[in-house]
């Protein structure tokens, strides 16, 4: 709970108005760049090949650098070693699938190719907790925007689990604006000829899945019954393309230790908009992983957690009973071409950014539209996910 945040935003605005103060973006070059190993390790009680990601810090404006060829091992207090292998650059998966046990403690050891070794403190999962409810509620969000909020309730009857972190995977159904059955192809003849052919793939209904990349943490410390209630993990505006048809969200709830929570809180605090006056003192965030060589630094947290997941589905009309469906968010005005304009049509078709709509045999006019209006595979996959329930 951060009661300050709203005040902060408010004050910044007031200050700007009242006192002509302003905020502006400035270019600040990375000062004295430090090359630091970043370890993202969260192993859970889900029976699977656990994953650990290694990367390095990079200069602002550049892209991420993966850490390859490291040796990654997780040990438990019974002497079991779980070796991890690099499957793709920077992504290490355990050789065997395993699940975290509640009464075991675990340590992580990473040895990088440059000869440095990093060890975590021994970590024990806290407790299991219920992900009691995940629901979609119609709300009026910030700035008076109507939308749907995805809210969760978490609960540990024993009240040992107090800190929670959430991740989600959202999947939404995409229905193309125009549902057509044929394609218009350009035959490689000379001069080029046009031919209308039946579609070879599903282009009307598709699905797209996105993963959360926000830090979503909550605590039940200050609630009466140890419950986290109404924690909003996602807000979707009414006109959000994702909720236009059918939407599904899978929420993972991880039970965290206080230290892990503090680590994530710091990450979040140091990168969110702070007020002019209340500015958290930033600094290097020390996790629970230590370098053997004291001159090295390491970023990251070895988290061992019990996970609970829940998925919900809803249609647009389930949450917004009145009013119009949101507009299709792309420009979909059909373009028409008569026989004299066939050269233009061919070049447009060759650009592959348009799809065939119709051909009127009487007027001999071809209609095309932008591909995003016709072919949903541009926006997602036409393979229905296994979990999908219509």
């Amino acid at each position: 709970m951060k009661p300050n945040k709203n005040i902060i935003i408010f004050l910044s605005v007031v200050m700007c108005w009242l006192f002509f103060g302003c905020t502006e973006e400035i270019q600040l070059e990375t000062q004295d760049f430090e090359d630091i190993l970043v370890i993202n390790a969260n192993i859970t009680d889900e029976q699977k090949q656990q994953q650990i990601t290694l990367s390095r810090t990079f200069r602002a404006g550049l892209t991420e650098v993966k850490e390859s060829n490291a040796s990654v091992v997780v040990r438990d207090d019974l002497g079991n070693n779980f070796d991890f292998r690099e499957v793709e650059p920077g992504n290490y998966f355990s050789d065997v699938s395993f699940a975290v046990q509640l009464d075991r403690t675990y340590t992580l050891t990473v040895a990088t190719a440059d000869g440095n070794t990093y060890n975590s403190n021994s970590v024990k999962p806290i407790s299991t907790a219920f992900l009691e409810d995940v629901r979609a509620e119609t709300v009026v969000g910030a700035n008076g925007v109507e939308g749907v909020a995805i809210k969760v309730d978490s609960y540990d009857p024993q009240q040992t689990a107090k800190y929670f972190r959430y991740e989600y995977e959202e999947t939404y159904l995409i229905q193309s604006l125009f549902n057509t059955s044929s394609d218009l192809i350009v035959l490689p003849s000379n001069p080029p000829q046009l031919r209308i052919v039946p579609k070879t793939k599903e282009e009307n209904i598709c699905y797209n899945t996105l993963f959360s990349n926000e830090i979503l943490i909550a605590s039940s410390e200050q609630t009466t019954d140890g419950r986290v209630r109404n924690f909003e993990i996602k807000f979707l505006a009414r006109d959000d393309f994702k909720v236009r048809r059918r939407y599904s969200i899978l929420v993972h709830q991880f039970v965290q230790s206080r230290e892990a929570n503090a680590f994530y809180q710091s990450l979040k605090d140091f990168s969110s908009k702070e007020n002019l006056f209340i500015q958290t003192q930033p600094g290097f965030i020390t996790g629970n992983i230590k370098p053997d060589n004291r001159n090295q630094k390491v970023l990251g947290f070895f988290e061992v957690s019990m996970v609970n997941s829940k998925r919900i589905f809803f249609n647009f009309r389930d949450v917004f009973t009145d009013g119009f469906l949101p507009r299709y968010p792309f420009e979909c005005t059909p373009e028409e071409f008569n026989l004299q304009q066939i050269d233009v049509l061919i070049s447009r078709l060759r650009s592959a950014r348009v799809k065939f709509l119709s051909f009127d045999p009487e007027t001999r006019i071809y209609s095309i539209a932008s591909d995003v209006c016709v072919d949903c595979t541009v926006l997602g996959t036409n393979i229905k996910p296994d979990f999908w329930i219509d």
Partner: protein
Amino acid sequence: MKLYLTLFLFFSSLISTYAQNEIEVITLDFNNETKLEIFNKIEANTQYRFFYIKSWLDAGLFSGSFKAAPIEAILEALFEESELNFMVLEGTKIILTQNNLIHDELPDTFFGDSLKKSTYTVTQINNNPVLVNKIKINTNANIQTFKIGREQRNSKKTSYQLSGYVTNDETLEPIPSLTILVEGAAIFTVTDINGFYKLQLPIGENVLDFKSLGIENLKKRVIIYNDGVLNVGLREGFELLNEVVVQADANKNIDENIGGTVSIDVEESKNIPLVLGERDVLKVATTLPGIATAGEGAEGFNVRGGQTDQNLILFDDAVIYNPQHFFGIFSALNPFALGSIKIYKGNMPAEFGGRLSSVFDIKTINGNTEKIVGEGSVGPVTSNLLLEIPVVKDKSSLIIGGRAAYSNWLLRSLNEESLNSSQASFYDFLASYNHKINDNNNIKVTGYVSRDDFSIASDSIFGYENRLVSVKWDHRFSDKSSGNLVLSNSQYIFNIGFESDRNNDFLLDYQLNETEAKMKANYAFTPTFKLDFGLSSKLYTINPGRIQPLGNSAILPLEIPQERALESAVFVSRNFDVNKKLSIDAGLRYSFYAALGESTQLEFEPGQPRNEDTVINTLNFDKNEVVKTYGAPEVRLSGRYKFQEDLALKMGYSNTVQYIHRLSNNVTVSPIDTWKLSDLNIEPQRGQQLSLGLFKNFESNIYEVSVEGFYKTANNILDFKTGAELLLNQNIETEVLQGEGKSYGVEFLLAKNAGKLNGWLAYTYSRSFLRLDSAFDEERVNNGDFFPSNFDKPHDFSLVANYKLTRRYSFSSNFVYQTGRPITVPVGNFTFNDNEFVVFSDRNSFRIPDFIRLDIGINIEGNHKKQKLAHSFWTISVYNVLGRNNPFSVFFVNEGDQIKAIQTSIFAIPVPSITYNFKF
């Protein structure tokens, strides 16, 4: 100064003696002639003779035609635009004086009240007639002689009573507890709270020695023939090291600044341009060397590289925890009510303690006891009014002052929907009653409240409040002893409320309360051995946080247990005059602190980092059971060596202990920072300071120059683990780091205290460092090395200048240059859970750009007609004329998976304002 006063006494007495002489009239024409030429002309044509110093005469030309005019008329016309004044003595001698030396310094009480009431006849005659020569020779060391009383031939009395008032020349306030002893005789007395004394002197010649702490020692020769009155004005001495006196009342003398004490007449500099026309004496103080803030919009003061929680801010002897409104932008002290502000930057007197860096001793005025007077201002943000109401004529007076901001109205009128239903307001209210019961007793009661409120449209409410009340009883026990008793209570409260339609509404409270009793007295054992001593005891009660659910909220009510502690001290101090040149002030204070139950304290495994896993024991303490005690002797030592009358070297050493700490893990402090008492796990902060300074005055004290260096160290300075959560944390000791502080610097001040152009130039070079070291990684910052503190600004330059164009128009300007303060910056980016973050450097390894600001102001006095309802003036000012976008902070935002650096500044453009002030 003393000299001029004496001269003035002399002149005045002569005037009365010779007032009955015939008046010679003059007929003369002057055509563009200098004053020198005019004097020569008058001397050639009349019997008048002028006595003056040539350097006083300006080059201005004068024209005029006089027919049968008295000399006074000619000279009044001649001197109208100049600083010169004149007196006609013995009918023909015209003595010129510089205006300010007489008019500004003559206390009303000097001849007025005290003499009127007196039944004694008084004649004061200087035995040295060579006036002009005397000024030239500047024989300060000479002892002035006064003849008291008319000799009565028939009298058989062998002793007569001498009485009078001793006042401070600069502040015109009475000097209590001053020892007056008669050389070579066992006769002495001590002045009472009103500076009044009575002495029985043997007939004939006596040499009186005036001695007091902080006052320059002075001797006067008195030849007494009868009962009489001798009022004495003394100036502040060299003894108080590192003291800055900011005075806030009109007509106070400004030209006396003898080393060590810097006095700035805030009235004189009332048109120093300030934010939105709001007068703020504390802001003026920050233009002096050694006193700084972290930046615009940063609360609190950093004195000589100290933390903001290390300042003891006393308002009529009660502690005020947050003397600022609106995040430090406005002062919460009613400027019209302030009598004096003394800031001890280092060597605080032994009577003060409990903070490491400084003491701001703020006193309200005593109200007018004769008629109702008032003062007020109307500005763009606030309106302010102060009334002085006599209750019992000549004995007691009530002052009532209030100020309120109308920013609510401002917010609503803004064309921004989200702000229309928001509120931001503040007010402060003050009432003080002073009653002079008799010559031996005086009581002053002060009450004060200030409050700030913010609220966000249907969301959060937020407020903080200071409340204090103090009662001070001054009492004179005997001729040899006087003292005072102060009872005070202060409160600091803040609350945060969150109200939305969700079920996580809450109200959070923080409350700090302290009650202190302090007794201070002095006793003169022998004429040369006077001791100041006292004791004080303070009870702290802190309710560090309570959260309550609102409505059907699911928030768990939580209350962090109350903290209580008793802080007591005994102190004693004495001033030794080793010889005329060397004077030493020695003070000793013993402070004793006891953290009291009811309380639960955690005991941690020794040699392990403090966290929840290393708790080995939970100790429970009953109500009033002593949890932990700390105590320490504190030394306050300062000395002065006077090479010449206007050149002194001063040195000081002091150590201090602080038992209460402000918890802040923000870059700058905020009003919702909590204060925490020392306990089993949090040790008191301890500091010591060594300083050395050279002080020199020039040109009869019009110019003063000082250079002062200091070196400070401190232990157990509180800091926090990175990312610590401090509010409502039940185990705050697991987040606390205690480290070492170190600061040093050189302060330079050049002030011109009089003339059409006056002001000061202050430059400080100083550094301030912090070290947080530990055997454990989690308790170490920057590898355990010293790093610059958040307010380490090596170069700090201020120039304040006022120029009086005419009596009605004056200009002022204020220029500030400061090194940008240190910040912590990213040293790289990284991705974590598909989102980009920054990794921060070692703490404070980079600086924001330098701070440069120029403000200008014009002060327009109303006309000077006497028959007028109120005296008024307008202040027009422009803050940040250069429009420089001085960054206050740089922070980093993650937007669209990318890190952006955002610079904020508070006053990025020139801010004009106009304020109307009135006085009646």
